[in-house]
């Protein structure tokens, strides 16, 4: 938090190059399609470049870009009017049964909880950055993740008993 105004182009490029996969894969959890998720990320970074002078530096640059990525992904979903289908099987390279249970449990979470889970445990953002990305306070992030944990635990226990 350095309170500066504006983001530099080279910073955005570095962020894009280092985190493209993470952005694209989490965006796919919103769009339900990896190709459209990639398109959303490309559009989001083009928007970030265009609006880079409006970055106020109140939080990390990555959190600011995440917010733009989610906006782009949601715009894509609104245009496509296609819900994310978590029931559709995807290739699993680990534990197919556990993955299936977790997939169903995640699919039943409200979108904000699901997104918070991906940002915390996949994108590895801290609470403040997640709050910046989702437009909510860090306290609300904590409550959201707590609710997600509780819901996932209950559902996974239901499945396994």
């Amino acid at each position: 938090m350095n309170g500066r105004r504006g983001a530099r182009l080279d910073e955005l490029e570095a962020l894009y190059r280092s985190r493209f996969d993470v952005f694209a894969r989490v965006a796919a959890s919103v769009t339900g399609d990896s190709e459209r998720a990639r398109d959303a990320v490309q559009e989001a970074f083009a928007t970030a470049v265009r609006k880079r002078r409006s970055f106020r530096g109140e939080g990390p640059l990555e959190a600011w870009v995440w917010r733009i990525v989610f906006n782009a992904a949601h715009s894509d979903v609104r245009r496509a009017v296609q819900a994310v289908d978590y029931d559709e099987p995807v290739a699993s390279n680990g534990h197919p049964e556990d993955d299936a249970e977790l997939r169903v449990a995640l699919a039943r979470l409200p979108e904000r909880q699901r997104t918070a889970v991906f940002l915390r445990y996949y994108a590895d953002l801290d609470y403040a950055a997640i709050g910046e990305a989702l437009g909510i306070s860090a306290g609300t992030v904590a409550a959201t993740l707590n609710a997600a944990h509780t819901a996932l635990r209950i559902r996974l226990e239901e499945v396994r008993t």
Partner: protein
Amino acid sequence: MTDFDRASLDRLLPGTSGSADWDDVMSRFRAGHGHRRRRMIVLAAVALVAVGATSAIAMRAFVIDKGIVGLPPVGATPSTPESGVLEIYYWLHGVPGGG
């Protein structure tokens, strides 16, 4: 803590389609920039036409309808001067007709 970690989420999320392409980002940025610029030009042109048309209408009302050029108002009768004397006033050094 629940039974998920980064590895399990990694397995659940769809794979990335394509690779990072910063040049594509910049070309989208430039395309969007050009689009906004064109839109601003069109809006400016529309505003200019609107101002021009409004001015033209106002001038027409002033010049033609108010009588500077054109016919006198309906019902008006031409007046006749009582005498044919032409009076000319001039000012010189602040005194009318003075020297």
